[in-house]
């Protein structure tokens, strides 16, 4: 029992990490709470749902198309709603604009797919295998592998690809990055694109493992991403991983051992406590603003 819960927790944690990465990157560059993040990923997940259930498309192709569309939507939101606000303005305005963008996407999603829970087709085998006396479902292992390898690919991209490095530099210091010849607008749009894509894949993996997709998962996703990012310390990949994993595992243990209906309240309470005790997150550091 314990082991099963842990395994599911790790799988969910890996998915959360995927969802968190894009969110955390955006935050670290623009200091903008991207409320639309969850709605973008649920959009992609719905797309995938439609492609699979209506058109019986090959799952891999469907995931790819959904991820691309999700990425495009995320960059569209950036260009239309956020770019104008990047210049000096009251921070609250950009936060509320993000909220507005989320609202628009959420309502568009609702028009298309409604607000009921839809049965997401299971794209992975339900088989299990035995290891050291434990029954391990293959689905969870595959999901874990996909999530972890995507995280790895993105990490390598940041570390070795010129544009990956550019993203890191932009998140450190936008003016200096522009002096290096890095096109700031393009880079930021790219961050949104990648973040959206990873989020969509995370959403699809989550939906396929629970065989469900619904509108409400979008907003929940935003909160999850924010929580995980804050717990781990915003702006770092390691932080997203720690935060995502911690959240995934805690949530599952709370759900199983405490109460499933109090799972989310307790998770949120945890967030509040963490913010109170260490406002910069477990891995975050303090920054002192210049006077």
């Amino acid at each position, binding site marked *: 029992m314990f082991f099963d819960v842990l395994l599911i927790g790790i799988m969910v944690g890996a998915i959360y990490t995927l969802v968190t990465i894009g969110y955390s990157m955006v935050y670290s560059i623009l200091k903008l709470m991207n409320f639309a993040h969850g709605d973008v990923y649920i959009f992609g997940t719905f797309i995938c749902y439609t492609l699979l259930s209506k058109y019986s498309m090959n799952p891999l192709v469907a995931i790819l198309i959904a991820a691309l569309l999700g990425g495009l939507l995320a960059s569209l939101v950036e260009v239309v709603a956020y770019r104008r606000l990047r210049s000096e303005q009251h921070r609250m305005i950009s936060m509320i604009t993000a909220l507005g963008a989320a609202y628009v996407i959420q309502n568009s999603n609702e028009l298309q797919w409604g607000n009921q829970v839809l049965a997401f087709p299971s794209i992975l085998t339900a088989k299990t295998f035995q290891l050291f006396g434990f029954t391990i479902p293959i689905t969870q292992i595959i999901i874990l592998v996909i999530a972890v390898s995507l995280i790895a690919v993105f990490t390598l991209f940041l570390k070795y690809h*010129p544009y990956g490095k550019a993203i890191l*530099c932009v998140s450190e*210091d936008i003016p200096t990055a522009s*002096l*290096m010849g890095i096109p700031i607008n393009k880079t930021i749009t790219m961050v949104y694109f990648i973040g959206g894509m990873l989020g969509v894949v995370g959403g699809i993996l989550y939906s396929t493992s629970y065989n469900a997709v619904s509108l409400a998962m979008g907003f929940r996703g935003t909160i999850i991403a924010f929580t995980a990012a804050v717990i781990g310390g915003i702006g770092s990949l390691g932080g997203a991983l720690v935060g995502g994993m911690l959240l995934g595992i805690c949530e599952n243990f709370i759900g199983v051992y405490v109460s499933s209906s109090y799972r989310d309240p307790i998770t949120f309470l945890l967030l509040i406590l963490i913010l109170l005790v260490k406002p910069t997150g477990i891995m975050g550091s303090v920054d002192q603003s210049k006077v």
Partner: protein
Amino acid sequence: MLTVKSLESGYGKIKALFGIDLEIKQGEIVALIGANGAGKTTFLKTVSGLIKPSGGNITFEGKRLDNLPPETIVNLGISHVPEGRMIFTQQSVETNLEIGAFGRKDKKEIKQDMQKYYDMFPILGNRRKQKAGTLSGGEQQMLAIARGLMKRPKLIFLDEPSMGLAPVLVNQIFKIIKELHQTGLSVLLVEQNVKKALKITQRAYVIELGKIVHNGKSSELLNSEAIRKSYLGEA
């Protein structure tokens, strides 16, 4: 090479430059000196595109620069090594240099250039995998200059390269600047160490409250009373 005519600029409503005229010829090394808050950094930032000018014009090799974004300007051949070094502290020394070469496609030559600067600044070579934030002030300055050179600029702006450095290092940095100029690079040097700056440059502009108040041969300005006044006020 670079011609600036009656440039006006500032931050929001607050004006900092009131009609600056300045010229740099191919291969020249020129100093821009003045007290703190006179507008030196604002001038560099305006030319390199970080601040939009509110009046006047800037031409570089016949092309208008005003209102171009910084990433375009740097690609035309002006590197700006900002005040306070502004290296990417979370990245390795190597990454900082690679980012300096952002947009260059000649991978082999980038490698060669990097090696060149590792040879020039052995301390950077030894620490290429280290996070740049762990370098000392002088090393960070060297890194910032090397990073600025990775673009193979025709003209380089150096903003207060000696700021906050120990005297020994200051001399070293000035030597490096002199050597760079000797390789044919045009240099615009903004400095608070006026005497040293005047010693290594050919011409100099003195800026006060957003206006150029003197300009001429550095050697002549070096012992001028006007400079002392500009810094310490009338006796």
